C-alpha cells in the first residue's frame, strides 16, 4: 500500500509536463520524500534498516513511519493533511491526520538518536506538532506562539532534537488543538532503550494504540469539532470494534500494551484472563518496586501507560475499556428505557402510522445486536460483531487478545476463533429446573 508518491518521479521520467509543482523539486531535494499510507489494516512491525537496532512495535490498525539516515541524523517527514479513515466496514470519516491516515504513523527511535523531523502543513489552517512527554530544547516543544511561530498552510518546518529518554510518547498539534485533535490529528511515539535496561524487559509482542474519541452525527462523516464531552465514537487508533484488529500472540509471549489517551475523559483498560503490570507511565519505566498485578488500569486524559503481561492462558481474551458505553458505537443518549413496557399490541397501530416501524426495547437492548434494520447512511449499529457463539453486541473500544500455542514467532496473522478443549465452555443445565419465580413483587 506504500505509494511513496512515486508517481511524481515516474511522471517526471515519462514526460515532465504533467509534473505538478516541479518548480519546487530542487528546494524539496533536501526533504525526505513523504511516505503516505492508505488503509486501516495492522502492518507488521517495521524492522529498522539502519541505525541502532531495536525490537519494533506493532501499531494496532496502523503503521510505523520509515526514516532515512542522513549524516548520522534520523530524518522523518510528517505531512499534516485531510484524510478519510474507515472506523469499521460501513463507516468512514473525514478527518485530519498525518501521511494519509489518522492517527498518523508511529515514530520509533532509539534513545540517543539525533532526530530531524520535517513537518509539512497541507491543512487549510496553521498547525504545529508538540512532542508530548519528550525532553527537548524549549524551542522544539511545538507550542504555537509560545515556543515557535505556527506552520502556515503549505509550509514545511523542521524539528531537531535528541531522543533523550526511552519510553512511550505521543505527538499532536498545539495550534487550534481542540479542533485539530477533534479532527483526529495525533500519533504514537516509542523511544526504545539504546541497550539492555534494567527496568525495561524485552517484549515478544509490543502493541501500541491511542485512545481517541469523535462526535459524528449518524449519517454524516465529519466530526463535530465543538463537542466538549458528549462524544459518540470511542475508538482505538481511529478504529472501533469490530474494525479493531485482534492482538495475536503466541502462548507464553511477554506482551506489552502501550496505550496513550488523547480523548477528553479517562479509560479504564481491562484485560481478561491475565494480570498485567504497569511497567511504564508518562515519565518512563516504573521502578520495579512499584509494580503490582492488575487487571484494569485507568488511563487518564493525556496519559500514556505501558502494560506488560505473560500470555500464558490460551484462548480469545477480551480487552476493552471498562466504561460500558465506550464499548458501543453511536447511540442516542435520550432514548427512554422501554424495559417492562409491553408494546406489541400498539405496534400495529404505530406501524400503520410509521411504515417500517418495529417495536424495540421492551426486553432490554440485546436484540439490537441481532437486528439488522436499515440505519442512516455511513453509520454503524450501536452493537455489532459476530463471534463463534453468536452476536457479540459490542462496538467502540473493544478487541480480543488471541493467545495461541501454535502461533509462530513474529506471525500476526489472525488464527480464527479459539478451539476450546472439550468440556471447557459454559453449557446449559439439562436437569429438572424449578418453575420460574418471577423477580420483583409486582
Amino acid at each position: 500500500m506504500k505509494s511513496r508518491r512515486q508517481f511524481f518521479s515516474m511522471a517526471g521520467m515519462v514526460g515532465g509536463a504533467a509534473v505538478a509543482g516541479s518548480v519546487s523539486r530542487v528546494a524539496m531535494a533536501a526533504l525526505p520524500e513523504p511516505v503516505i499510507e492508505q488503509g486501516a489494516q495492522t502492518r507488521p512491525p517495521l524492522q529498522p534498516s539502519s541505525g541502532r537496532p531495536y525490537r519494533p512495535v506493532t501499531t494496532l490498525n496502523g503503521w510505523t513511519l520509515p526514516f532515512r539516515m542522513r549524516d548520522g541524523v534520523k530524518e522523518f517527514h510528517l505531512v499534516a493533511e485531510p484524510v478519510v479513515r474507515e472506523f469499521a466496514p460501513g463507516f468512514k470519516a473525514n478527518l485530519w491526520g498525518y501521511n494519509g491516515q489518522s492517527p498518523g504513523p508511529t515514530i520509533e527511535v532509539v534513545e540517543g538518536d539525533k532526530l530531524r523531523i520535517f513537518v509539512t502543513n497541507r491543512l487549510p489552517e496553521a498547525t504545529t506538532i508538540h512532542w508530548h512527554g519528550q525532553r527537548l530544547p524549549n524551542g522544539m516543544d511545538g507550542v504555537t506562539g509560545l515556543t515557535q511561530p505556527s506552520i502556515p498552510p503549505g509550509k514545511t518546518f523542521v524539528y531537531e532534537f535528541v531522543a533523550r529518554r526511552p519510553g512511550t510518547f505521543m505527538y499532536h498539534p498545539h495550534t487550534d488543538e481542540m479542533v485539530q485533535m477533534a479532527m483526529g490529528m495525533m500519533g504514537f511515539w516509542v523511544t526504545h532503550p539504546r541497550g539492555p535496561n534494567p527496568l525495561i524487559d524485552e517484549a515478544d509482542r509490543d502493541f501500541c494504540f491511542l485512545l481517541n474519541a469523535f462526535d459524528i452525527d449518524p449519517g454524516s462523516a465529519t466530526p463535530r469539532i465543538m463537542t466538549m464531552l458528549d462524544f459518540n465514537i470511542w475508538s482505538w487508533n481511529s478504529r472501533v470494534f469490530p474494525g479493531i484488529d485482534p492482538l495475536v500472540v503466541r502462548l507464553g509471549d511477554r506482551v506489552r500494551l502501550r496505550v496513550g489517551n488523547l480523548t477528553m475523559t479517562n479509560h479504564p483498560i481491562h484485560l481478561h484472563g491475565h494480570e498485567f503490570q504497569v511497567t511504564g507511565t508518562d515519565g518512563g519505566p516504573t521502578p520495579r518496586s512499584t509494580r503490582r498485578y492488575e487487571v484494569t488500569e485507568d488511563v487518564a486524559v493525556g496519559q500514556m501507560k505501558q502494560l506488560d503481561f505473560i500470555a500464558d492462558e490460551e484462548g480469545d481474551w477480551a480487552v476493552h475499556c471498562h466504561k460500558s458505553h465506550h464499548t458501543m458505537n453511536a447511540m442516542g443518549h435520550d432514548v427512554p428505557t422501554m424495559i417492562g413496557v409491553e408494546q406489541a399490541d400498539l405496534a400495529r397501530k404505530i406501524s400503520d402510522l410509521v411504515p417500517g416501524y418495529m417495536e424495540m426495547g421492551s426486553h432490554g437492548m440485546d436484540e439490537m445486536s441481532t437486528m439488522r434494520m436499515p440505519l442512516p447512511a455511513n453509520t454503524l449499529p450501536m452493537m455489532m460483531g459476530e463471534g463463534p457463539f453468536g452476536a457479540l453486541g459490542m462496538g467502540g473500544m473493544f478487541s480480543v487478545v488471541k493467545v495461541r500455542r501454535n502461533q509462530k514467532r513474529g506471525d500476526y496473522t489472525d488464527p480464527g476463533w479459539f478451539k476450546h478443549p472439550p468440556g471447557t465452555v459454559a453449557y446449559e443445565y439439562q436437569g429438572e429446573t424449578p418453575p420460574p419465580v418471577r423477580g420483583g413483587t409486582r
Partner: protein
Amino acid sequence: MTPVVRRVRGAVGLAVAAACALVAGCVTVDPAQSVRQLDQKVPAFGTESLQFLREVQKPEERREAVKAVLAKPLGQTEAVRVAMLNSAAMQVLVAQNVAEATAAAQSGRIGNPWFNYERMRSEDHLEISRMLSFGVLELLTLPQRQRLAAESRRAAEWQLAAAVVDEVTQIRQAWVNAVASAQSAAYAERILQSAQASAELARRMEAAGNFNRIARARQQAYEAEAVTSHALARQAASVAREQLIRKLGLDATQADTLQLPQRLPDLPAAPLEAAKVGAVASDARLDVQLAEAQLRAALRAEGLNGWTSRTDIELGLRREADGGARGFEVDLRLPVFDWGGLQRQGARARSLAAAQQLEATLRAAGSQTRESYVRYLTAYELARHHREELLPLRTVISEETLLRYNGMFIGVFELLADARDQIDTVRAVISAEQQFWLAEAALQSTIVGRPAAGAAESIMRAPAAADAAAH
C-alpha cells in the same frame, strides 16, 4: 321547471298570444329561450356545466338523473350538474328572471283601449253613448317602448347569467371545501392515533416506573391537543359537507347518499397562462355586458321620458246612440304646473349613472382579472411548492427519523412526534391545494366577468423541521 315557472309561462303565453295578435313585433318571453340565451352568454365558463340548464325535464326524470350522478363519488363538474338539476335555488333564479323579463316585456306594450258606455235618462230622453279611447302618446311611442323593453329584457338576461355564474362558483368552491376538509379530517384522525399511541405508551411507562409524572403528562398533553384538533377538523368537514349539500339542494335522502372523492384533483401540469387569461376581451365579460345593457336601457328610458314627462294624449272615438252622432275627443294633459323637468332630470341622472357604471366596470375589469390571476398563480405555485418541495423534504425527515429510531438514536416517542409532524405537513399540502382550487374557481368566475373571492387568507403552515425535536 317548477310549477311556479310553468304557471308564469302559461299566463304569459295567454297574454302574449292575445297581445301579439294586436300589435306586430311585440316582445315575448320564453323561459327556455332565456336559458338558451344563458348558454350563449357564458360560453367559456370553466366547464360546460351550464349546458345542463337546458335539460328541462320532468321532476321525476330529474330526480332519477340526480340519483344516478349521486351513485358515484361526486366530482366537481358533477356537483354543478346536480345543482342545475336539483337545486331549488337555481330554479328560483330562473323564475325570477322570467318575472323580470315579463315585466320588461309588459312595458313594451300599449295599454288596452278603454271602452266607455254611458247611458243617461232624463224625463223623456234616453242618452246612450259609447266611446272607445286609447292613449295616443303610448301608441306614438310604441317603437321606443318596445326597444326599451328589449333592452331591459336583455339586461335581465345578463343579470341571470351573472347570478348563475355566481351560483356555480359557489358550488364549485363548496365542493372544494367539502373534499379538502374531509381529507384533512382523515389526517387529523391519524394525528390523534399517533398521540393516543404515545399517551398509552407513556401511561405504561409510568406504570413500569420508567417515566415520571411529568414525562407521562407531556405525552398525554399531546393527546389532549390532538383530541381538540381532531374535533375541530371533523366539525369543519361536517360544516363544509352541509354547505355543499345546501348548494346542491339535496334533500335528506339524497344527502345520505352523497359520497365525495377521497382527495382533491391533481394540480394541473401547468397553470393557465397569463396571455390566455388576459385574452378574454373585456366586452365578452358579463359585468361589462350587463352594464352596457343597463346603459342602453337607461338611454332608451331617458328618450322615452323626453315625451312622456311633458304630456299625455288620449283619443276617444265617440258614438251617440240616438241620431248616430259621431265624433272624437282628445284629452291633452297640459304641462302647466309641471313641465316634467324633474322627471327628465331624474332619467338623465339614471343614464349618467349607468354610463359611469359601465365606465367603472370597464376600468376595473383588467385590474380584477390581474388580481384574481395573481391569487390563482400564487396559490398554484404554493400548492406545487408544498407538494414538490415541502412534502418530499418532510418525507426525507421521516425516513431518516425512522432510520435513527432503528439505530436507537431516538426513541419511539420522537418517532411518533415526527409522524404527527409529517401528517401536519400533509394537511398543509391539502390546505395549499384547497386554496388553489378555490382560487381557480374564483379566477374562472372573474375571467367571465364575475369577480369572485378565492380562498381564505392563509394556508395551514407546515411544521418546521426543527420543531420535531421539541415534541
